[in-house]
């Protein structure tokens, strides 16, 4: 690969020893995600006077400070007596590698595709002996003509995309200011606050049913040759999309950009696939931290899959699709999520499914995550952040991310991963091409 040259690989350890030998158990939501991993790439423009060697040194020094707060990340996976994964805090550290890329970060962003982008964030699957396998991997790539890319890949067992983004943010805060504003905490999921009063409340089995069908369902067909399309919806375009999603503004609160975009892509991708019997299946994935009383510092998996009911939605109606998505979002309540967690805990002993994607298109809501506010150094300016939740099996994945600073509060970046032929068709789709024409950041 002439584009990216790997220079070196080492391990970053925390600057102080943490409680060695302490065991952290993983929650039921964590264990389901065993066969997935996350890859994120943060791009920065650098000012002219920046010396690459000094910057790399600063980043490596600051990560050792930051890792003192993350014993789960520097630890290693072990199985307990019941065969379930746990993390043993042993200070082994995080693998960190350095690379060099040709050109500048701006020129790279203009011609990057999925294959090239994944060169900036190394990932190796679990080794034969997981005790020697680093669950988190960081890659620092310096662009020869200016710019920096920070790649983070991690096992989904330990972290969801929200926690992965807070990990990078904590690192950036330490590098810039010397302290972390929101340190992480590692607790099991909280138990139910109030006792169940079954007589009064109708139990919400919606989530349980959804998860049951994924866990007990057939293995999904492995999608061959996926490609990823990254689109930027500026503030204006996103607002017009939201307008289309709710033509009658007096019908209730206006949809969030995620709701509108989910509806849009649901419709377009179904059309591209040639679905005849209504829209294809859709599951949205949202952060449940606030609902169960946790703040963003909770480190682990706390995103819940929520199947959207597409019955009765007309194939070309974005407003109906968005409404259905909105209904699903409303259905996500405390009772439903606690019921799900309790059901998962009671049905112990199940091995995790090969994929949580099931048979549906997955739409992941990351629009509230804070990806752009903390650069590592004053000489760096955040340009773009990409996020992948791999592997993509089943029908495909859509990730809705915040847009870079300066694009307005409603601006969004959408990363769509589909089989290759579908991506090509999606680019040519009328709705996307003519009506909205979002800026294509990354071609398939």
């Amino acid at each position, binding site marked *: 690969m002439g584009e990216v040259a790997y220079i*070196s*690989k*080492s*391990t*970053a*350890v925390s*600057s*102080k*020893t943490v409680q*060695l030998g302490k065991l952290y158990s993983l929650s039921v939501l964590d264990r389901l995600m065993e066969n997935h991993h996350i890859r994120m790439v943060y791009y920065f423009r650098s000012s002219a006077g920046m010396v690459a060697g000094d910057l790399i040194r600063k980043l*490596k*020094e600051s990560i*050792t400070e930051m890792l003192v707060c993350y014993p789960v990340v520097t630890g*290693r996976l072990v199985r307990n007596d019941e065969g379930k994964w746990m993390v043993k805090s*042993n*200070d*082994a*550290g995080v693998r960190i590698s350095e690379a060099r890329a040709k050109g500048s970060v701006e020129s790279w962003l203009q011609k990057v595709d999925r294959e090239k982008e994944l060169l900036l964030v190394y990932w190796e699957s679990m080794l034969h002996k997981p005790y*020697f396998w*680093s669950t988190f991997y960081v890659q620092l790539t310096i662009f020869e003509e200016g710019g920096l890319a920070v790649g983070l890949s991690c096992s989904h067992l330990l972290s969801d995309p929200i926690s992965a983004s807070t990990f990078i943010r904590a690192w950036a805060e330490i590098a810039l200011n010397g302290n972390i504003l929101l340190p992480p905490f590692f607790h099991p999921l909280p138990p139910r606050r109030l006792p169940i009063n079954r007589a009064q409340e109708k139990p919400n089995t919606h989530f349980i049913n959804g998860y049951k069908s994924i866990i007990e369902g057939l293995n999904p067909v492995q999608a061959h040759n996926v490609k990823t399309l990254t689109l930027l919806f500026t503030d204006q375009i996103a607002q017009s999309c939201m307008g289309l999603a709710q033509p009658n503004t007096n019908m209730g609160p206006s949809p969030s950009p995620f709701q509108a975009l989910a509806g849009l892509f649901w419709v377009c991708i179904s059309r591209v696939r040639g679905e005849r019997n209504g829209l294809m299946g859709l599951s949205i994935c949202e952060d449940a931290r606030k609902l169960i009383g946790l703040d963003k510092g909770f480190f682990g998996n706390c995103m819940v899959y929520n199947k959207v009911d597409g019955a009765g939605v007309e194939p070309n109606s974005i407003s109906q699709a968005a409404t259905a998505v909105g209904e699903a979002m409303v259905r996500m309540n405390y009772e439903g999520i606690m019921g799900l967690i309790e059901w998962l805990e009671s049905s112990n002993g199940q091995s995790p499914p090969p994929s949580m994607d099931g048979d549906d298109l997955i739409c992941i809501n990351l629009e509230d995550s804070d990806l752009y506010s903390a650069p590592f150094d004053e000489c760096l300016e955040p340009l773009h952040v990409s996020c992948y939740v791999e592997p993509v099996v089943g029908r495909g994945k859509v990730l809705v991310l915040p847009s870079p600073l300066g694009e307005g509060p409603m601006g969004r970046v959408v990363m769509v991963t589909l089989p290759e032929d579908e991506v090509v068709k999606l680019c040519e789709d009328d709705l996307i091409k003519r009506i909205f024409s979002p800026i294509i950041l990354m071609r398939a």
Partner: protein
Amino acid sequence: MDTRSVKLKYVKLGYQYLVNSVLRFLPLPVMAVVAIHVARVSPEKIVTVIESLHLGRLQVTCSSFLVVFIATIYAMSKPRSVYLVDYACFKPPVNFRVAFATFMEHSRLILKDNLKSADFQMRILERSGLGEETFLPRAIQYIPPDPTMEDALDEADLVIFSAIDQLLEKTGIKPKDIDILIVNCSLFSPAPSLSAMVVNRYKMRSNIKSFNLSGMGCSCSLISINLAKDLLQVHPNGYALLVSTEIITPNYYRGKERAMLLPNCLFRMGCAAMLLSNKRRERQRAKYRLLHVVRTHRGADDKAYRCVFEEEDAQGKVGICLSKDLMLIAAEALKTNITTIGPLVLPASEQLLFLFSLIGRKIFNPKWKPYIPDFKQAFDHFCIHAGGRAVIDELQSNLELSEKHVEGSRMTLHRFGNTSSSSLWYELSYIEAKEMMMKGDRVWQIAFGSGFKCNSVVWTCNRPIKATTDGPWAHCIDKYPVHIPEILKL
């Protein structure tokens, strides 16, 4: 304790007091007898005796001059005391830390085609007595390490200049005041030398006497002390700056021979800078005064010569091969050294006992157990080179030392690993940080090195020493001593 051994203990104590004090109190009765005899003789007889000598004024004057002259020659030819004004030990920055688990993972990843060798390294590390906070230079922390000469020079820069900067700040000495410079680093010897690097960095005088000792192993710090002491006799009234270090970067063994993998596991970054002087005005503030230096070289014996040997393995990779007889040879070298240093430092009681035991074994019964002199009576503190757990254990049992005596060595091995020639100074620093050093205390520094050498230096504490806020132990001394398990399970 049963009454028999208690009684024996008091008998021994009584014997020691008697023998050690006999020389002090012997003159008393003799003086008493002479005084009585003189008092008996009448004053007139004394005057007559003096007059009979026919001493003229000239004779008296010449005799007085002669006496004064002899006294001056004697005073001037006496070797001037050498003082250790102060010393500084390098503490690496925290991001050079190496955790056990990380070291092991790296070892497995680098030696993935030789997992048996990786397991061997793991077993060494578990039993090594090293802790979780030792330091390795950055170039060695890569997977796989591929150190260049520039990396080695960077490490040398960092460790040596940090230690010297600290020392100059502590003592207030200017680089231009340094008369003698000795740098010792066994396994890295670039051109220009490390001592030239120091002269260049600190812009020292053009008539500085600089020396660079390489290849002399872990006991080289004490060899430098010996050299400095001799030089200060020839160039009195001077300052000697000594730097002891081992540059780890170029010496990483990249092969798989087990006998050569040990140094990778045990050697860590470290450096010490010492300021010696024989200026009279340093007498007040110097920390220690040098008493004895004893050097023992067993190189004439082939086995001893080859027991720590740098060579290429079957694949052509260079490493330091440690022979299985290392401990035996170390014990032999130790015996030779303490036989020489014993008479210099041991109190008369112990020397007599040793003599009797020797005579007894030669004449009466060779099967008598040899008497091991009690060095605890000669010294208050022991700094045993932290070459490895086995070395400390061996010396502890040979010299019958308690855990408290070897605490400094064990804790230095735990906290800093084997920093080669500078480890003695980290150990001394530990003793000071624990405020165990009192004025008048005697310290014995003993180190082994390739060749095979065993060197000893004895210091006496010149002034009370308080724990300071700087120094390598400053932020962690309260955690020590820690219990170090036999085998650390990871």
